[in-house]
């Protein structure tokens, strides 16, 4: 079977539309991100407690909030998981989750059966969240620097820079979508963002590889045409390599459960947008760069 053959789309002619689309989503997302402030981050990065509680009787989030109001524990939020109204994620300020558990234990004192179980719990003190934040930043810096260096050695600086810009685009795009969909960034999302960085480069490399080959073959200086042809020639592999990976991530997103939710969502958005950015950001920017400051690619 062969679904994509001999395409001649003028991808790079449409690049301005793509620039507008990317900028619109990113700017809108960043405005929302700015307005949400600390709410953008999970307990790992701002400190705080998180409880995953399951009740044996049906109970509503509002009812739980009502109980928590009595406790005087400062900030808290209650989020129901699933439709049955049994399992909840309760987030609260650092060091307060024990108090919440003790409170519910107190409520059932004297009753013979347990009305709830604590399925999971995490508590991050502010000093720990600072080190986790630092670590995430170092990991980002190391990842991007590593990729930039490797690509500079294998291709040349302009290619490496274009690919790295595309990575930035993809990661900021994911962060924007996370903000727009009211999701939080935690350690697993950072891992997903880095994985997006690693994967998004794959598509870009496939296209650049073809561009490199075509420049060698044609000795042409009309880079816009060479780039466009290369994108078309590599199109079917760009799409299918992304697709096989997306199949898997789709299932992780829909079936992987709550713990993987934010992680697989970030991968889903990031890898889709990574494919788009290989064409419309990485390659397109190189063409525009060449237009502004002509350069002969060493291949």
């Amino acid at each position, binding site marked *: *079977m*062969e679904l994509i053959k001999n395409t001649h789309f003028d991808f790079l002619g449409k690049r301005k539309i793509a620039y507008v689309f990317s900028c619109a989503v990113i700017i809108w997302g960043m405005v929302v991100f700015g307005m949400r402030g600390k709410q953008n981050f999970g307990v790992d990065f701002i400190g705080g407690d998180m409880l*995953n509680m399951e009740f044996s009787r049906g109970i509503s989030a509002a009812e739980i909030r009502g109980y928590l109001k009595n*406790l005087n524990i400062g900030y808290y939020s209650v989020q129901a998981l699933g439709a049955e109204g049994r399992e909840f994620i309760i987030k609260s300020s650092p060091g307060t989750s024990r108090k919440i558990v*003790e*409170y*519910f*234990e*107190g*409520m059932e*004192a004297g009753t013979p059966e347990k009305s709830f*179980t*604590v399925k*999971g*719990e*995490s*508590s991050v*003190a502010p*000093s*720990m969240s600072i080190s986790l934040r630092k670590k995430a930043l*170092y*990991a980002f810096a*190391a990842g991007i620097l*590593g*990729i930039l260096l*490797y690509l500079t050695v294998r291709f040349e600086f302009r290619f490496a820079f274009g690919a790295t810009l595309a990575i930035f685009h993809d990661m900021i795009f994911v962060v924007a979508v996370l903000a727009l969909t009211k999701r939080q960034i935690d*350690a697993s999302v950072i*891992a997903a963002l*880095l*994985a997006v*960085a690693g*994967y998004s*480069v*794959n598509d870009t*490399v*496939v296209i650049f*590889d073809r561009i490199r*080959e075509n420049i060698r073959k044609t000795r042409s200086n009309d880079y816009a045409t060479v780039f466009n042809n290369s994108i078309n*020639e590599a199109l*079917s592999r760009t799409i*299918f*390599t992304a*697709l*096989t*990976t*997306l*199949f*898997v*991530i*789709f*299932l*992780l997103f*829909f*079936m*992987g*459960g709550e*713990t*993987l939710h934010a*992680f697989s969502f970030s*991968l889903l958005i990031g890898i889709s947008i990574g494919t788009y950015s290989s064409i419309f950001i990485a390659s397109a920017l190189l063409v525009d760069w060449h237009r502004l400051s002509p350069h002969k690619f060493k291949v």
Partner: protein
Amino acid sequence: MMRQYYYRFLLILAVIAACIYTIYPPEKKIRRGLDLQGGVHVVLEVGEAAGEESSLSDLSDRVLEVIRNRIDALGVTEPIIQKQGMRRIIVDLPGVQDPDKAIDIIGQTALLEFRLVSDDQEMLSAALQGNVPEGYQLLYSREKDDRGIYRETNPLLIKVEPELTGKYIADAYMGYDSSGFPDVNLVLSKEGGAVFENITASNVNRRLAIILDGVVKSAPTIRERIGGGKAQITGRFSVEEARTLAIVLRAGALPAKVEMIYREVVGPTLGRENITQGFRAAIYGAIIVVAFMVIYYAAFGLLADFALAFNILILLGVMATARGVLTLPGIAGIALTCGMAVDANILIFERIREEIKTGKSPKSSIDAGYKRAWSAIIDSNITTLIVGLILFFMGEGPVKGFGLTLSIGIVANLFTAVFVTKSVVDWVMVTQKVEKVRI
């Protein structure tokens, strides 16, 4: 000519056999992370020592030693207790049955003090107004109110200087007091027994408070001189609480203030759910990928699927051999490997199709396909490997597990998707005299 293929297949079979041997039985050979089997992960930060001159790093070592003793008493199968930097201690207790108890045991300073109580009622009321006399302090006991919240009650004016501390404890065990409530029995060391005898002798009819980590546990009145070096701590303990207290008192107090700056508890149910959901998603994802490859690339797709299975097998084999920890994001990493493992084959197969269109013979199309796709494969695998290694070395817990499976998967991919498939294709081409390739 043929001999070359025998060597290749021998190598492939040997790798398969070695992997199966190391993996089997998987429940035993592959270590699961906290998120998959439940357990406790804690990071402690050691504060300054109380009045002692010693470096923070030494202090952390001593804290670590005490915690190790306590955890040994708890009987966890594979605990990890290690220092991180100067003042942080990481404690990992996979599969622990009662996480609350474990946290209690790790986190308690367990500084036990016997201190005299002032029986002057006027001084106590003055102190409650804010006039605490020198050499004394106000301490409370903690009790649960009817709503189950701990409250500080029963203020007592207590001497700052302890008469005796937990240092002199030789043994501690749970018992029951005369009315049948759990208590903790202490056996004091020889030296401690003598001190205790002196105190009780010279303070008959005064109250001696037993204070644990700044909270009054009980404050019995001394009736008579107590010899024999034995004491009891009573104070409305549950059986569990008394048992826990006995363990920490036996292991000794922490030599410094310790703050629990990170605590992660995963209950066994959540661990089981994570495993089932994670694996189900990964397996269904893999099935779709496998089906797609066969539909889209026919026999070559089947070959890629074989390479994919081999890739996962090597991945698990290396995990088992290296004693790597499989986490939920690690399962996601395996799933992602399934999606990415076939990428290399897609690059090769697409290239072969292209070469065939230029009119080359099947053999040279295939050779050119593999050769020309190689640079894109190695570049894309290495960039992903860079990220995988960073996540493995810089990440913690679940994220580390993701970096691990991702990295192993990518490296194994070069072997399975390129070397293995090429060997099979070449062998088929040589033995079957293929004239036309359908791909």
